[in-house]
């Protein structure tokens, strides 16, 4: 599979995750989000950027439980809970936000 962003064709896997992490740009994130029916707000970007930082540091996409805890630590308990994160990313904060962030699917996600 592939997506088109700004005239460029970017390769994705069968579930829509970018194959090459280096292909990611903010425009790519917006295009993936649009295809997922997610309207990117500042709160969405906060999570997406957090995931990219996490991946840079640890070389994995975190499991949802770990993401929730880490967000809580960094952004406060109002944001570090499943309800808040599922409202932003209805198909799963780890799975869907990782896709928009251009990361692989979290380890252990099916």
């Amino acid at each position, binding site marked *: 599979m592939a997506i088109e962003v700004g005239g460029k064709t970017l390769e994705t896997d069968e579930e829509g995750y970018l194959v090459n992490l280096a292909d990611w740009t903010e425009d790519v994130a917006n295009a993936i989000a649009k295809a997922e029916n997610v309207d990117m707000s500042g709160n969405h970007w906060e999570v997406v950027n957090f995931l990219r930082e996490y991946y840079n540091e*640890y070389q994995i996409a975190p499991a949802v439980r770990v993401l929730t805890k*880490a967000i809580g630590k960094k952004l406060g308990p109002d944001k570090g809970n499943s309800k808040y994160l599922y409202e932003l990313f209805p198909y799963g904060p780890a799975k869907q936000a990782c896709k928009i962030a251009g990361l692989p699917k979290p380890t252990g996600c099916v």
Partner: protein
Amino acid sequence: MTEAAMDLEAEAAGVVKKFMYVNRKAPYGTIYALEGLEVVLISAAFDQDVSLAFLDDGVYQLVKGQQTKGIEVKNFSPTYRALEGYDIEKLYVERESLEARGLTADQLLVPVEVMGRDELVRRMEEQDVVIAF
């Protein structure tokens, strides 16, 4: 039913078992170290009592400053630092294996408990499940 499936059933019933993952191989050259780490990360979701043991060439998995560009594989060593966030904090390293390779604990990426072979054997005997990679 396989042993693993029975363990999952026990977990569903709220039973906490002691799992030890034993890492014996160098990080690159075979897939064992990476696969073992992935299994550990996945199993963290089951809220069991998990520990990791590093011995033989497995101690190299934890060494700081790994450079993998030349062999064109991903350097996954930073992922060991994520274990704490997964509440996996029992990392045991066998003293004899470290010493045989001229390594010390301060050359490792993460805080570990260094222990002699006899102590590690004792910890292994306490486990319900030991899985070796």
